C-alpha cells in the first residue's frame, strides 16, 4: 500500500485521478447517465435533494450512487492511509451558506466544475462560457485570499462527528435500495418520502452497482491525490503550481478521447444535453460558483472527499449544497434546457454580493 500511497501523492496522483474520471464518466453516460453527466457533484446532489422531497421538480429526482461512492471511497482511503481525522469549527455556518450559493450559481449554468469540463470534452461549447466564468470566480476568490481572507481554524473533534457524513451516505444507500413509499394522495401521486423520476434526467442512470463502484474508485483515488477541480486553477494563479492543473487537463483530454471512441462527441452550441445557450448566465452562474468554491477551500468533489475524511466543516458545505438545490428548484432559480429561470440572474447577483462581503470581511488568522 505504501507504493500506492507514494504514487498517488506524487505529481502523477492528480493525473491518474483525472484520467480515471475521463474514462469512467463518459462510460457512465454510455451506461445510462444523462448526456455529459457521467459525474456532476452539483446535479447529483440536486437529484438527491429531489429524491428526498426537498424540491418537487419531477424530472430530477434520484439518489445518485456516485455521490455515496465518492464519500465512502474517500473514507476508505482515509482509513487505509491513516488520514481519517474528525475536525470542525472553521466557520461551519458560513460554509453552509457558501455551499448553498455555489449550487445556486452552478444550477444557473447547469453543472459543477467537473461537469463543465466534461461538457466541454463532449463538444458542448456553451461550457466554454461556464469555464471562463469559473476561472473568473476563482480569480476573485484569489484576490480575497491575497487580502487575507480566512474562515479560521478547525479543531480536532470527537470521532462520532467524523462518521456522520459517511453514515448519512449509508442511509441514502439504504433509501435508494428500499425506496420506501407511504402511499399515494387522492390524485394518485406518490407522497414519498422517497421520489424517483419516471422521465427526464432523473430517470436516466447507470446500473446502481456500477455507479457505486465508480464513485468508490474515484473517491479513493481523489482522497489520496487531493484532486480538486477548483484548486487546480487557484494554485496555478496564486502559487504558480501546476500540480493539480495537470489532473484537470488530463480529465478533459481523456474524456474527449473516450467520448470520440464511444460516439458521444457532438460539437456545437444548440441541443446539447441538459444545457442551455445563454452565454451571459452560463458565465455569470459559474463566476458565483467558482468564487464560493474558492472561499470554501475546494471544489464540490473535494468537499465530498473531505467530508469522507471526517471534516465536519466540509460536511456542512455538502449539506448546504443539498438544501440549496432544494431551494433552487422550488423557487425557480435553476435553469433548464429551455433557458435561464425567472429568478436565476438575481440570485447570482445576490450570491456574488454575499460572497464578496464574506470574502472581504472574514480574515484574521495569525501564524
Amino acid at each position, binding site marked *: 500500500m505504501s507504493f500506492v500511497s507514494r504514487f498517488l501523492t506524487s505529481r502523477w496522483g492528480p493525473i491518474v485521478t483525472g484520467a480515471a474520471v475521463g474514462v469512467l464518466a463518459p462510460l457512465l453516460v454510455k451506461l445510462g447517465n444523462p448526456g455529459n453527466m457521467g459525474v456532476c457533484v452539483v446535479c447529483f446532489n440536486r437529484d438527491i435533494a429531489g429524491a428526498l422531497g426537498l424540491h418537487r421538480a419531477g424530472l430530477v429526482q434520484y439518489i445518485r450512487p456516485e455521490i455515496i461512492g465518492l464519500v465512502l471511497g474517500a473514507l476508505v482511503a482515509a482509513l487505509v492511509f491513516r*488520514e481519517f481525522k474528525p475536525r470542525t469549527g472553521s466557520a461551519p455556518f458560513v460554509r453552509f451558506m457558501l455551499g448553498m450559493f455555489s449550487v445556486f450559481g452552478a444550477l444557473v449554468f447547469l453543472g459543477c466544475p467537473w461537469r463543465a469540463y466534461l461538457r466541454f470534452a463532449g463538444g458542448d461549447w456553451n461550457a466554454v462560457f461556464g469555464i471562463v466564468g469559473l476561472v473568473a470566480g476563482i480569480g476573485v476568490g484569489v484576490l480575497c485570499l491575497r487580502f487575507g481572507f*480566512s474562515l479560521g481554524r478547525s479543531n*480536532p473533534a470527537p470521532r462520532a462527528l467524523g462518521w456522520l457524513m459517511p453514515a448519512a451516505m449509508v442511509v441514502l444507500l439504504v433509501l435508494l435500495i428500499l425506496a420506501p413509499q407511504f402511499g399515494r394522495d387522492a390524485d394518485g401521486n406518490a407522497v414519498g418520502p422517497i421520489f424517483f423520476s419516471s422521465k427526464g434526467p432523473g430517470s436516466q442512470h447507470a446500473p446502481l452497482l456500477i455507479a457505486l463502484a465508480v464513485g468508490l474508485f474515484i473517491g479513493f483515488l481523489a482522497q489520496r491525490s487531493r484532486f*480538486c477541480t477548483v484548486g487546480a486553477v487557484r494554485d496555478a494563479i496564486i*502559487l504558480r*503550481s501546476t500540480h493539480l492543473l495537470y489532473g484537470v487537463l488530463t480529465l478533459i483530454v481523456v474524456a474527449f478521447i473516450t467520448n470520440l471512441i464511444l460516439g458521444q462527441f457532438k460539437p456545437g452550441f444548440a441541443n446539447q444535453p441538459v444545457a442551455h445557450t445563454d452565454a451571459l448566465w452560463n458565465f455569470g452562474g459559474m463566476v458565483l460558483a467558482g468564487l464560493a468554491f474558492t472561499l470554501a477551500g475546494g471544489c464540490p468533489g473535494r468537499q465530498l472527499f473531505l467530508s469522507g475524511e471526517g471534516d465536519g466543516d466540509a460536511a456542512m458545505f455538502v449539506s448546504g449544497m443539498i438544501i440549496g438545490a432544494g431551494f433552487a428548484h422550488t423557487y425557480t432559480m435553476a435553469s433548464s434546457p429551455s433557458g435561464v429561470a425567472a429568478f436565476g440572474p438575481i440570485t447570482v447577483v445576490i450570491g456574488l454580493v454575499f460572497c464578496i462581503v464574506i470574502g472581504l470581511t472574514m480574515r484574521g*488568522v495569525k*501564524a
Partner: protein
Amino acid sequence: MSDIQQLDCRGLSCPQPALMAREAVGEKDKGTIEILVDSGTARENVSRVAQSAGWQVNIEEQPGGVFKLVLKK
C-alpha cells in the same frame, strides 16, 4: 540565540498553509523555518512550495496527527 521562524498552520483550509509558507520563504534568504500542519494535504503543499524555492524540508511526525516541517537553507 533563536532566529528560527515558527508558523502554526494547523486547522487552516487550502491554500492558506501553502500561502503562508510561500510568504515565509520569500522573506528569508537562508535560515530555519518551522511550520506546524495537521493534514497530509498541507504537509505536501507546504513541502512543494519550500522545495521549489530551494529549501530542504525535514518532516517530524508529532502526536495527534500533527507534522512539524523544518525548512532549512
